[in-house]
Structures are given as structure tokens and as C-alpha cells.
């Protein structure tokens, strides 16, 4: 952790800007560009302020970076990006990607993403990542030149493996199940929270009507007038207070969303394991069948039914030379197969080991982060209650002066 990039370099996504340009199909498009600023931390201790480097990136470049990291480090739970489109919105929030509030929250999310990667013991050392932060031009080309797209597993292949793998590591099976459940429960939570926010907004805003009617009523009263008027003012304050309260709550929702997307990253690691395990099982199966074939040829016994065996019985057996040749080929293949199996086994074990290490790291991070999120949520609720008490106490005092 001491050597991770985050300690050596200050990283911020400080600004967002609307841009227009031409896309791949030469059509005009509008997009948002984000300013990434970096500054070396070490120089600051010398009393000088290190220079700030900056460059602009758009969301699609972040996506490219993440794809690269996911493929290159399949055993790592790669931090997720903030959502591409606004989801789980309650009525007042805009679902428009160009909406300034959405852009602002995305800016924060992108910064968070970079900080997560920079503080990851493995990911922070990646050169492509470093270039992303520091190299203005030609980064896209550089990433594509790594040829990482070729390493990516096809979706179909992964799905196939999921169904057919026989002996996956139980821990990964459980973990996959957990990540499915986590996704489901956080989605549900976010949806209901959005509805709760909607309703709460309604309750507060209707109180604003009291402000108006108390004011009108106070006009016809003598002794009661002042008390009513000032109480009405407090009702207006109450109604207005909900905007800030709910804006703050959006940050909590964003924290939950990050872990909703993290669940997907977790599942990706599990899938990779399944794929590797399936590959291994296939290779072992192949090896076994080749050994069997070899044995059969050598001993002349047919243990398993094979068309070739039958035809050779029917149409005459092969010459000893032909048989020898076949055996030799098979023996070569078997040797190759055994070496491959050995390395696949090793790969598989390495993968399980390093993946599990990162998963443990992730679990601790998740528990810590979510606890912090719940605490901050509770603090928000406490603040909201205190504000409510304050306003109603003020109103009560006004009423008492009636």
C-alpha cells in the first residue's frame, strides 16, 4: 500500500466542460469532457508547490481504460465507473446526461474511480493507467496497440463454461451467488429510496402552503396577526429545507451505486475462474481420452466402443507400422498435453490464490466503505431531524405569542 500511486500523486477530476465535435460517423455530437489534474506529492514537502499537470478526457476514454484493466487483470476486482446514464432517479432529478447536477455527480464518481485504481496495490503500477493520467495525445492508440481486445473472453464462451464446469472452487460459486444477491438487493434499495425521496419532497413542499395562508389570515387579525405571520415564515423555511436534504442524500445513493456496480466486477472474477476451470477440465478430459486411445492401440484391446475400432475389425487391422506411427503421434500429443495441463493447473492455482487475495482485500474495503456510508446516512437523518425540531420549535414560539 505504501508504494501505491495515490500516495505519490494527487489526482483530481476538477472540472467538466461541454464540448461539440464529430464522432466516428462524422456526425456532430455533444459530449462532456473532464479535466484530470495531477500533482506529485513529494515536492510539496520541500515547501514548493509542485506544478499541476492536466489533461482532458471524456467518459468513453474512461471506459476504454476500464476495459483494458478488466482484461489485463482478470483476477482483480476492478473498480467500477459511475453510471453511464442516470438511473434510479426520483421525479425532481433529471434523467438527462447533460443535466448539470448529473454531470457534477459523475465528475465526483470519475475522480473516485481514479483514486480507487491509484490506491490498488496491483492496478496502480500499470503503465497504461499512468499514461491515462499524464499522456495527453496518442493514449487511445497506445491502448489499442497492447492488443488487449484479443485477450478478452467472449461472452458466449463464458456462458458456456458456467453451465458446463464440473468442479469449480466452491468459494467462487458462493461468491458468485453472493454477488447476484447483492446486486438484486441494492437495486431494490435504490429504487425504493428514490420513491421515499419523492414522497418526502411532497410532504415538505405542501407545508409551504401554510406560509401563504397564515400570512393572509394574519391580515384580518389584531392580536393574533404577528404570531401567525412569523409562524408562516417558518413554514416556508421548512418547505425549502428539503432541497438541500435530498441533494445530500444523493451522495449516499451514489455510494450504494458504486457497490452495485462492484458486484458486477466481482462476478466477472468468478466467471473468469469458471472459464479457467472449464478449460482445465476440458484439457484433462482430452488428455485422458488420448491416453486411453494410446493404450488401446498398444495393447490391442478395445475397451471403449469406437467406430474406428469397429471398422478396423471389419475391414482388417492396420499394419504394425501404421499403428506404431499413430502411437508415436499420440505419445507426443500426450506429452504436450501433460505439460499444458501442468501449466494450466499452475495458472489456475495462481489465479485462485491471487484472485482470492484481492477478494479478501475487496471484502474489507466493502465492509469499511459501506459502514461509513451507513454512518453518514444516519448523520444526515439526525441533521434532518434536528432541523425539523428547530423549525417547529420556532413556529411554536410564534404561535405562543398569538
Amino acid at each position, binding site marked *: 500500500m505504501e508504494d501505491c500511486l495515490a500516495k505519490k500523486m494527487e489526482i483530481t477530476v476538477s472540472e467538466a466542460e461541454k464540448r461539440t465535435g464529430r464522432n466516428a460517423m462524422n456526425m456532430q455530437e455533444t459530449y462532456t469532457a473532464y479535466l484530470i489534474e495531477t500533482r506529485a506529492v513529494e515536492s510539496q514537502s520541500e515547501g514548493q508547490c509542485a506544478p499541476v499537470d492536466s489533461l482532458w478526457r471524456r467518459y468513453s476514454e474512461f471506459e476504454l481504460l476500464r476495459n483494458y484493466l478488466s482484461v489485463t487483470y482478470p483476477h482483480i476486482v476492478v473498480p467500477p465507473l459511475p453510471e453511464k446514464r442516470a438511473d434510479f432517479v426520483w421525479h425532481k432529478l433529471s434523467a438527462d446526461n447533460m443535466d448539470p447536477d448529473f454531470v457534477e455527480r459523475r465528475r465526483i464518481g470519475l475522480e473516485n474511480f481514479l483514486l480507487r485504481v491509484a490506491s490498488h496495490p496491483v492496478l496502480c503500477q500499470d503503465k497504461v493507467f499512468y499514461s491515462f493520467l499524464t499522456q495527453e495525445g496518442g493514449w487511445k492508440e497506445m491502448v489499442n496497440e497492447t492488443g488487449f481486445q484479443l485477450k478478452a473472453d467472449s461472452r458466449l464462451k463464458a456462458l458456456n463454461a458456467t453451465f458446463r464446469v464440473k468442479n469449480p472452487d466452491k468459494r467462487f460459486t458462493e461468491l458468485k451467488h453472493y454477488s447476484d444477491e*447483492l446486486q438484486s438487493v441494492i437495486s431494490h434499495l435504490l429504487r*425504493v429510496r428514490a420513491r421515499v425521496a419523492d414522497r418526502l419532497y411532497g410532504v415538505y413542499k405542501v407545508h409551504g402552503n401554510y406560509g401563504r395562508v397564515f400570512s393572509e389570515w394574519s391580515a384580518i387579525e389584531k392580536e*393574533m396577526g404577528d404570531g401567525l405571520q412569523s409562524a408562516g415564515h417558518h413554514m416556508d423555511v421548512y418547505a425549502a429545507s428539503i432541497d438541500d436534504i435530498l441533494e445530500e442524500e444523493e451522495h449516499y445513493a451514489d455510494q450504494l451505486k458504486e457497490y452495485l456496480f462492484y458486484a458486477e466486477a466481482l462476478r466477472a472474477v468468478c466467471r473468469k475462474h469458471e472459464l479457467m476451470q472449464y478449460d482445465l477440465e476440458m484439457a484433462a478430459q482430452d488428455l485422458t481420452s488420448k491416453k486411453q486411445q494410446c493404450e488401446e492401440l498398444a495393447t490391442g484391446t478395445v475397451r471403449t466402443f469406437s467406430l474406428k475400432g469397429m471398422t478396423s475389425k471389419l475391414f482388417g487391422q492396420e499394419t504394425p507400422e501404421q499403428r506404431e506411427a499413430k502411437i508415436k503421434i499420440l505419445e507426443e500429443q500426450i506429452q504436450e498435453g501433460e505439460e499444458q495441463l501442468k501449466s494450466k493447473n499452475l495458472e489456475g492455482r495462481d489465479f485462485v490464490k491471487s484472485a482470492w487475495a484481492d477478494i479478501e482485500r475487496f471484502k474489507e474495503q466493502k465492509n469499511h466503505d459501506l459502514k461509513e456510508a451507513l454512518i453518514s446516512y*444516519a448523520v444526515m437523518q*439526525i441533521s434532518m*431531524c434536528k432541523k*425539523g425540531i428547530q423549525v417547529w420549535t420556532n413556529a411554536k414560539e410564534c404561535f405562543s405569542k398569538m
Partner: protein
Amino acid sequence: AAGVPRALPSSGPKSLREMPHPLATSSSEEMGPALTPSPDLLLPRSIADKDLSLPNGTPVDTSSPASSSSLLNRLQLDDDLDGETRDLFVTVDDPKKHVCTMETYITYRVTTKTTRAEFDLPEYSVRRRYQDFDWLRNKLEESQPTHLIPPLPEKFVVKGVVDRFSEEFVETRRKALDKFLKRITDHPVLSFNEHFNVFLTAKDLNAYKKQGMALLSKMGESVKYVTGGYKLRNRPLEFAAVGEYLDTFSLKLGTIDRIAQRIIKEQLEYLVELREYGPVYSTWGGLEVELSEPLEGVSACIGNCCTALEELSEDMTEDFLPVLREYILYSESMKNVLKKRDQVQAEYEAKLEAVALKKEDRPKVPTDVEKCQDRVECFNADLKADMERWQNNKRQDFRQLLMGMADKNIQYYEKCLTAWESIIPLLQDKPETK
């Protein structure tokens, strides 16, 4: 002596002319033969710091039993002016359901405690149903047409929409009936009304009701219920102003009623969502190990907030809305009394005109015109006094009502605050410390 009222010194079947106004400037010695001071008043009393006077400047005689203030009002906020000890206490409680072959209905216990001479016993306890309260109100309106009679809760309840026998409905009604009787008790004239006395004391009210059919007061016959307005020469300013005030006042109350209902509706919809929200945290807790307790804690916390919110909405429905509606009814009553007053004044003016047209030289004004004039003057005086007390009570009632509303909201937030504050330590708890 139950069931047969003695002749009481109330403003009942006597001519207005004979009866001196309770708040008149006469000193205690000049009190008319109609009024007998209650025993308490003969004791030396401390007069409150303020000098009481009518709007027109004449000082109020606080020695009359009809003084409108009381010291020991158990339910209202202490804002009363003079130090007179109250001598009549009435309470409505203990609702009970009665199931008979013909119908099912609720009765309430009406308890009276008094030292007034007009009552044979110091304590009474009778059972009355809504019909009886309605009867009393009608009788009061008939026999005291120059006074403002407090309103009753609504008579007819739409069946199927509201359950007439639900605890909440019965309790709301009980409170309104209690308020009704207390307002009469507070009134310097109405509280001495014979029908009120019978209502409080009679074992068999129905027998008295049948008897009473024949005893309509003269006043009741002559002043009929009026729906339209009357064209008057000059309506005294204060009554015109009150009329206008009441129109706006009722409108504003209606608006507040609608707002309050809307808030309750929004709160209940919020509650529905909260009820789904809390348990999701619990489900999540079931998936986790280290986060299990914190998530359960949050779930429980939201559950507590739900309960608090439910209580708030219930309170507002049961305590706030009915009182608001009662005042709308009160305004209506007041407007009707104002119309009656207008009618009396119109009659007088008409008679006056008729006399002027006859061109009689005699300076003597005919007696019936004089009587009309007295009627007008008494009505004006009664009404003015009632309006003042109404304004004062209204101020107190709304002060209490709105402070109550603020209080309930404060309590709601305090309950939620406690819930959230109590889980902070749970959330911050490190596994090693367990």
C-alpha cells in the same frame, strides 16, 4: 328534585326589559331581583390586576355570577383575566355502546360538580346521547336568541365512509361534546339556562323533552330563523366589521383544513414507501456477515420512524382537523346570530318608520316600538359581549391548537432523532471490540 326545574334566575321566559344586562354598569348592590348571587361571591375576592371594561369604556362589574372568566379551567391555557373562582364544572367521558332492537347508539357520561344554588345537589352524573346534545342546542338557540351558541360536531356521518362506532370517531366526538358543554359552562348567561340545568341533572330527559314542547318562550316565537340579509339604515360598525371578518376567517380556515388534509395524505403515502424501505436493509443484512448488525440496526431504526409518523398522522386527524372544523361551524353560528340581530333591528326600524308616517303629534312613543328598541339594544349588548368572548376564546383556542400541532411535529422528530442517534454507536462498533 330531579326532573322538575325550579324557577331559575336565567334570561329565560322573562321580558328583556325587566332583566338587567349581566355586564351592565350597576354595582353589586343594585343587582336586579332576578339574579341571585351564588354563595361564593359574598366572600371577599381578589380582583385581578387589570380593570375590566366593555369596549365602550364602561367598567365591568366582576361581582356578578355571570362574569365570563374562570380561574380553574382545567383544560384551557391559563389566560383568564379576573380571579373569580368557578363554581360549575362539567365533563363528558366514558362513551358506551348500546345495542337495542331498533338501533345501536353511543351514550356519554356527563358529570357535573357545582356549588351553585340553582342545583339541588353538588354532584350529578347522567348519561346522554348525541340527540340529547342536539336537543339542548336547539333549546338554547330558541331561548337565548341574542346569544351565540357554541357549535356541535356534525350530526350526520356518511355511512360506509366513517365508522360511527370506531374508537377514533367516538373519541373525537366525545372531545367535541365536552368542548361544547364547557363553552356553555363558561358563558355567564347560557350557563344559567334552565334547559342546560335539566340536561345536566335530569334522570329522564325524554320526559322533560315532551313536557317542554308546550313551553316555548315568547322570545323564541317572535324571532325566527333567518336566511337572507336585511336592508338596514345603519348597521353598527362593529357588526358589519365582524360579518366581513367572519367571511374571510371561514375561507382561511377552509384552506387550512384542505392543506392539513393534504399533508396527512402525503405523509401516509410517504409511510407506505418507508414500510417497504426498512425491510430491504434487513434482507441485505441477511447476506452479509460483518455488516449484518449495522444493516439490521438501520432497518429497525426506519421501523421506529414509521411508527412515529403513524402517530403524528393519527394525532393530526383526531385532534387538529375536528377543532378546525368546529370553528368553521362556530363562524356559521355567529353569522346566523348576526343575521337575527339584523332582523330585529330591521323590525324596529320598520316600526319606527310606520310611526313617523302616521304623523301623530303625541310625543309619546308607542310601547311596542319602545319594546323593539329595547330588544335591539339588548341584542346588541348581548352580542357584543359574546363576540368579545368569542374573539378571546378563539385566540386561546387557536393558540393552543397551533402550538399543539407544532408540539406533535416536534415529538415526531424527537422520536426519529432518538432512533437514529441510538444506532450510531452500533454502526461504529468494530468487530474486535465485541
